[in-house]
């Protein structure tokens, strides 16, 4: 078994670009709008989803042949819920302020469409190692967009990145003002639309036949 065969590399790299869960499959939009008002929660959320997707993929893939078909969704949910609880507890212990900022959205990872989508579409029919790569790839693809949108929103909405003031005071003295709308979810939707717009214009090939 070749761990880094071409096929496995594609399983990992496709979700980063051409099969991105947010940009192409338009999954996980709700949390993408809610947690991206600053960069830090966006990064943490992206990492949390990456870890949970990867390990739930592995676990489901390991037991995929023993799961009765009629109750598979319940089994998947139990696995995901267990992992989400672990991650949520770790966040509370290690990074309490971020976990407060993320509030319910950590718990809501359970209902994140990306997770269920990957479990159903990939882990149920593939071996553990490709499933792991697929989970990491999809999670990172999701995190990539979150970080992009979060960085733009924090920079224009607060003039800072990761909580550090980037714009010097003389900008503000000259009349510059932070854009309040950037901190609202409505602007996240528009920014996300812009990212999809750019992505389709430059990368996405399906429309250009």
């Amino acid at each position, binding site marked *: 078994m070749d761990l880094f065969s071409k096929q496995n590399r594609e399983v990992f790299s496709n979700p980063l670009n051409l099969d991105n869960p947010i940009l192409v499959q338009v999954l996980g939009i709700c949390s993408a709008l809610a947690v991206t008002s600053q960069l830090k929660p966006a990064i943490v959320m992206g990492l949390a989803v990456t870890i949970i997707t990867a390990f739930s993929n592995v676990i489901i893939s390991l037991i995929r042949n023993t799961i009765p078909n009629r109750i598979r969704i319940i089994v998947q949910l139990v696995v995901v819920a267990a992992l989400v609880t672990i991650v949520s507890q770790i966040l509370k212990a290690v990074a309490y302020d971020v976990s407060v900022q993320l509030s319910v959205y950590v718990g809501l990872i359970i209902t994140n469409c990306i997770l269920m989508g990957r479990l159903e579409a990939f882990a149920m029919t593939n071996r553990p190692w490709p499933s792991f790569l697929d989970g990491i790839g999809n999670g990172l693809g999701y995190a990539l967009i979150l970080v992009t949108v979060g960085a733009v929103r924090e920079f224009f909405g607060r003039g800072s990145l990761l909580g550090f003031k980037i714009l010097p005071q003389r900008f503000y003295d000259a*009349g510059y*003002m932070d854009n309040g709308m950037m901190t*609202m979810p409505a602007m996240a939707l528009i920014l996300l639309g812009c990212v999809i717009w750019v992505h389709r214009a430059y990368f996405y090939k399906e429309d250009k036949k």
Partner: protein
Amino acid sequence: MSLRNYLDKIRPNFEEGGKLHAFKSVFDGFDSFLYVSSETSRSGVSIHDAIDSKRIMSLVVLALVPAMLFGMYNIGYQNAAAAGKLAEAGCWGMFLYGLLALLPNILVSYIVGLGIEFAWAQWKGEEIQEGYLVSGILIPLIIPVTTPLWILVLAVAFAVIFTKEIFGGTGMNIFNVALAARAFLFFSYPSRMTGDSVWVARDSIFGLGYTLPDGFTMATPLGQIGQGVTVNASLQDMITGLIPGSVGETSVIAIAIGAAILLWTDIASWKTMLSVFLGGTVMGLLFQATGATPVQWYEHLVLGGFCFGAVFMATDPVTSARTETGKWFYGFFIGAMAIIIRVLNPGYPEGMMLAILFGNMFAPLIDYCVVQSNISKRAKRAK
């Protein structure tokens, strides 16, 4: 007709193979702006109105001129009044000051908006659409005169790109473009759009007008109501428009002249206009009867952007309901909603912008319901 001849003479340059072919859309845009195009559709059955949309837009701009001119005068008047030098500032001096204060806003609005439209049309290889002619003059009229220009640039660009062009350009937008620009400003830079320090121009320009002290504040009547302060403007001032506020919205008389032009030329729907006022009246009376607001119902109708919105914004043929019955519901909804927001939401002293955007959103639904009820009514008759 020498201009016509000149246009015809330079036309070959812009045709296929001409050296300026890349600018064909710009040429066509100017040509059809100056002269009614004689081109007709080549296929299908089409009904053509006697005037095309460029002529309609020009008439709306014409109807906005009284409000704009009065707005300029009012800018000067408020500045002089705030400086306490009303007696020495002449009528023309105040008007000229207002003109100079407002002109940069109008220029920026047109240059940025039309620039984006032209560039977009050029990029897509389409004809230049004329929708921005009206939005370009509306935007400076519905914001405070002190709005910084760079913010205005952002708002205009946002409105043109995200509420118009991505929906397919003029005639395809769901939301009123000018109001979208205002909404962007309102939510992005609330400190420059509401409050009591933005409504009066405070710098002297070329020696005209007076420089006001930094701490000077002056709330609009609606702002005073929102803060629970007694309004110090008389009803007469509210109707003539000598109160602080967004540039074009203050004078009921100037807006009435514009309304007369729009109604006489049959461009705006009298049903929409009337029902907005009906909705406002009903809600105003209701709140007055229940004691929820200290404001008389008729004051609600003349204050803030109610009249301006009812006449120039709600009647926008693209974003309003299109069925004749639907226009009644649409207008009533907007009027009622504006007063509800004003009275019940302490955060927003003015509700007309949000009410109209809300109405825009529901217009397709209203149309759908009207059409469906018509269909089922007729289906019953056929049985």
